[in-house]
């Protein structure tokens, strides 16, 4: 069967499944809309959290990123998993006991202040919005590349589907759809990974195959280190970045994870405190399956790529090379006219992306007009290829390729839906119900939630179609701000009975302003890397912002009056599991 048709069929089946699940589990009350009625089993919640967490970027780009970063890719692997330990141990059980719907709910009530609530709402909206725009763009790219339709139409289809089940189903619909999406995406990720591991090192478990031997008897990673140093790259298994930056970036990602509203809200959906703890454990198990496979895929693909193309003549390279050349994701500029591909350290092009002319070169390659004459490197490879081309490189059947498409779409849709829900909840619950019109009825609030979800999905779709070119920089923002604002405010709210509103609010504002200024300065106002404080890049600065937040909060609270007795009572109460009851709005 033709690959195009096969892809349509598999994607069609998975979409029908999601919509069916959404109709079966649609929400009838605000409680079902916000926290799925508080009755989700810990295992299902863990799976849904994992699907929510792993975005199109985790699915498509991460292995490629690690493949090109080598050891330093560890900052993403540890950074995006280690935060779950903090969530399980420091946040989830207490927030579940507290028993409200949202993070601004906790901040507003614990710090007995609507100013604190408002700061929290603004942070939540900003963080979730920056994130969702990237997802909509991911949906558009996935559709466009595989279903051969224009990018804009891809985004519109994605918007339509997310609109349907997020607006109709609320958290309940989203949760059960995400369970289905997790199954699709993990299956789609593991099948090619297992095949490649078997082909390269004859071990069906990629996590072990990673440390296995190639056919010629050398260890895969030794071989890869050698290939790297021979071509002028740094060894694959040795850190490249300054240690301090690796440390701070990893920490910012971990702390940011534990402060992201769309992750935290997950733990409001389970019935008990005990369930919140174990559910964080299940979430990490499901995430770890992909996150421990990704570095193995990265190493396999890197070795494969270098072996297949380095010093080969263009005529000899396999068909997939030419296929991906046609999608603009690969480019070869034959600088020394020897008809062979020289791949080594250095930028092959003068810009980030290749610019093709309509002409063909001597070997039949597509001619590139922006080859960089200062470097002998002739090959440009887009990182996303690593996952996308894996099935072809390993010569897997067409249905596996179609499955990868469905997996990428599942990853993008599930994350987008989770984020949209946080945005709509922030508007209808935190902004309308709690700040602007407290007398709004249950039905009115539910309608407000649906309408704001609808508006949010359309706006996100618009930005997904016309993405500001700083989307990638915005992700650093999301994590940095979550780490510097929410994380300390929540931790102190639980672990320090004496923390008061003055301390928490000044702490959040200082953390936010400091982190935002640093990121803006280096990403948009022309700061250069040699001006980094202590060599910390903007991706890692949230860690320092968090430290400032903690210090300022503690100092200010020492000099201002202690919180009211009733609030201290609440803190005592959330520390004890018994009597959690279901999440409620009162």
């Amino acid at each position, binding site marked *: 069967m033709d690959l195009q048709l096969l892809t349509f069929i598999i994607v069609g089946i998975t979409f029908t499944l999601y919509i069916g699940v959404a109709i079966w589990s649609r929400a009838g009350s605000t409680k079902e809309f916000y926290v799925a009625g508080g009755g989700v089993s810990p295992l299902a919640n863990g799976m849904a959290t994992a699907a929510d967490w792993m975005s199109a970027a985790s699915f498509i780009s991460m292995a490629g990123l*690690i493949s090109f970063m080598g*050891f330093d*890719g*560890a900052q993403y*692997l*540890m950074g995006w*998993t*280690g935060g*779950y*330990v903090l969530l*399980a*141990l*420091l946040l989830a*059980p207490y927030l579940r006991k507290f028993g409200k719907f949202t993070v601004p709910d906790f901040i507003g009530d614990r710090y007995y202040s609507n100013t604190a609530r408002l700061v929290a709402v603004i942070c939540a909206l900003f963080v979730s919005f920056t994130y969702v725009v990237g997802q909509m763009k991911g949906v558009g790219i996935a559709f466009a590349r595989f279903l051969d339709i224009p990018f804009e139409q891809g985004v519109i289809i994605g918007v339509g589907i997310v609109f349907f089940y997020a607006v109709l189903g609320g958290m309940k619909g989203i949760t059960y759809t995400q369970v289905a999406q997790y199954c699709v995406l993990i299956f789609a990720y593991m099948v090619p990974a297992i095949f490649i591991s078997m082909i390269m090192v004859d071990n069906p478990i990629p*996590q072990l195959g*990673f*440390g*296995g*031997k190639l056919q010629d008897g050398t*260890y*895969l*990673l*030794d071989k890869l280190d050698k290939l790297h140093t021979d071509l002028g790259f740094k060894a694959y*298994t*040795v*850190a490249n970045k300054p*240690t301090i930056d*690796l*440390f701070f970036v*990893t*920490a910012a990602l971990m702390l940011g994870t534990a402060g992201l509203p769309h992750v935290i809200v997950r733990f409001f959906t389970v019935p*008990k*405190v*005990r369930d919140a*703890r*174990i559910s*964080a*454990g299940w979430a*990490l*198990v499901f995430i*770890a399956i992909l*996150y*421990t496979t990704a*570095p193995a895929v990265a190493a396999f693909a890197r070795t494969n790529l270098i072996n297949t193309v380095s010093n080969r003549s263009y005529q000899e390279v396999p068909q997939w090379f030419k296929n991906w050349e046609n999608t603009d994701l690969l480019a070869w500029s034959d600088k020394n006219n020897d008809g062979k591909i020289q791949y080594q350290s250095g930028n092959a092009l003068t810009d980030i992306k290749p610019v093709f002319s309509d002409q063909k070169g001597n070997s039949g390659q597509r001619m590139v007009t922006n080859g960089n004459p200062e470097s002998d490197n002739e090959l440009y490879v887009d990182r996303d290829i690593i996952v996308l081309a894996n099935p072809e490189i390993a010569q897997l059947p067409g249905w596996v390729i179609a499955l990868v498409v469905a997996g990428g779409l599942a990853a993008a849709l599930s994350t987008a839906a989770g984020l949209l829900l946080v945005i709509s909840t922030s508007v209808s619950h935190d902004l309308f119900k709690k700040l602007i019109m407290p007398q709004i009825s249950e039905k009115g609030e539910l309608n407000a939630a649906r309408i704001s979800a609808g508006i949010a999905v359309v706006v996100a779709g618009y930005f997904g179609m016309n993405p500001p070119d700083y989307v990638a920089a915005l992700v650093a923002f999301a994590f940095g701000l979550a780490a510097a604002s929410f994380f300390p405010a929540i931790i102190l709210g639980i672990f320090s009975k004496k923390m008061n509103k003055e301390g928490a609010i000044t702490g959040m504002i200082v953390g936010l302003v400091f982190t935002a200024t640093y990121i803006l300065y280096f990403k948009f106002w022309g700061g250069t890397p040699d001006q980094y404080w202590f060599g910390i890049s903007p991706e890692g600065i949230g860690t320092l912002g968090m430290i400032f937040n903690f210090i300022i909060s503690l100092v200010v609270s020492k000099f201002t009056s202690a919180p009211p007795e009733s609030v201290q009572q609440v803190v*005592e109460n959330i*520390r*004890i*599991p*018994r*009597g*959690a009851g279901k999440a409620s709005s009162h």
Partner: protein
Amino acid sequence: MDNKNKMQAYWKKNLRYLTILLSIWFIVSYGFGILLADYLNQIKIAGFKLGFWFAQQGSIYVFVILIFVYVRWMNKLDKEFDVDEKE
């Protein structure tokens, strides 16, 4: 022991568990995976340099184990102090 003291003892024990588990969390990721990675890379187990393995595999496995140990400890502690949730 009156109720207030009992709750204080419960909380203290909880904080002790957190200190133990978070120390391990810090040591495997920031310690073995980042600060000591170059040093540990001199040791090789099967095809892995140890520092590299902790950075890209080992720390994640330890994270998972830590959460499940925490759940076990806390469920026991809740029962011991009679603050567990009834069915």
